């Protein structure tokens, strides 16, 4: 090759610069719509676990940040009606068969489960994914339960001596979900005064 070596550097640099500008431009144009979509997704997820009749505010924007079980900050979405907190919703994590599962848990002022939904998971299709409400109604059976109902030592799948059904062929996934909800309710019990505090 007759070309001097630095030519290749300049060519590579020029391509990087050119495509970098294209990417920066696309990011500028798309960042606002993407943030908007993320907010809508959150609103959708919250509206599934918090019944619309119990609040007159927008829980997506009425948030408090507390320290979660793992010591990391946890954003809590609050439903209020007439100035009183009627329910709170926050994300809980459980360990499943294929890594972490993220769920949204909503609890009312008495500590009873308003609803739970899976947000993201990598469980086996056809087995572990029965935690999705689109596949089965399993996850809806937690609604109305609380730490005393069933008793704390019964917050397990049947295989472990608890009261909750596992799926045929999949125990690890429901075990993780049950444990995550129990931890979520314990978090509520520990932080009740802060969660229900009216600002």
């Amino acid at each position, binding site marked *: *090759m007759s*070309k001097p070596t630095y*030519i*290749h*550097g300049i*060519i*590579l640099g020029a*391509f*990087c610069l050119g*495509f970098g500008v*294209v*990417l920066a431009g*696309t*990011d500028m*144009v*798309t960042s606002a*719509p*993407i943030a908007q*979509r993320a907010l*809508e*997704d959150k609103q959708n997820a919250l509206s599934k676990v918090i019944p619309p009749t119990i609040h007159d505010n927008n829980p997506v924007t009425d948030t408090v940040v507390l320290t979660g079980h793992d010591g990391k900050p946890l954003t809590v979405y609050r439903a209020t009606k007439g100035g009183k907190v009627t329910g709170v919703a926050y994300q809980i994590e459980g360990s499943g068969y294929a890594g972490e599962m993220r769920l949204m848990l909503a609890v009312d002022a008495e500590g009873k489960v308003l609803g739970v939904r899976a947000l993201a998971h990598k469980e*086996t*299709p*056809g*087995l572990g994914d029965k935690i999705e409400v689109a596949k089965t109604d399993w996850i809806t059976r937690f609604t109305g339960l609380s730490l005393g109902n069933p008793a704390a030592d019964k917050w397990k799948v049947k295989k472990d001596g608890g009261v909750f059904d596992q799926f*045929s*062929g999949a125990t690890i996934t429901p075990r993780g979900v049950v444990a995550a909800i129990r931890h979520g309710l314990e978090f509520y019990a520990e932080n009740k005064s802060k969660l229900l505090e009216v600002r």
Partner: protein
Amino acid sequence: MATPSYSTIVKDGLWDNNGVLCMLLGMCPTMAMTTSATNGFGMGLATAAVMAASNLLVAIFRGYITYEVRVPVYILIVAVMVTLVDLTMNAWMHELYKVLGLFIPLIVSNCLPLARLEAFAAKEPVLPSLADGVFMGLGFTLALTAIGAVREISGNGTLFADASLLLGPAFKFMEMRILPADTGVLMMILPPGGFLATGLLVAGKRLLDLRAGKQISMGGAHCVG
């Protein structure tokens, strides 16, 4: 080598020189995404879009890319195309993105786009390069959908489950249950099933090629001569 005719490009991409069933390229997304026919189809289409765009760009800029830095430039182009698809779909096709979003970053880990840039777009004119990207991509889609269908039917008993989430409610009719619920062989959905289904389809393709009297060579860029 003379530029192949369009009919050769189409035949190569879809069947003779199929990226998955013949060249065995792009195994990472193939294994990961073919747990259902719908997933395979979605991954295939997203890959086809990236391949068409990157083949086109490389063919256009070919004169400016020196031999020594061609590979980093190709990788840059593929990565930029993937990011552009990712951002625009997230912003303006959000429902589709929720289904496909998982697959899109995986396209970067696919060596098939890179292989076609090097083997085709770096040497051939712009329009044949675009055609090669499109038909290699469609061949990839075909193979992934077929592997996904084999795994989904044997593992889960369904075919094209959730197709309406990907393609819209009009495609609800595609969602079929072939076997009764809970009768599938779970292994087919787990990673070993990916290798089994791919192996069976590769063998099936070779059998058909032999029946048709084609010469089969083992390995190499062209396995049907």
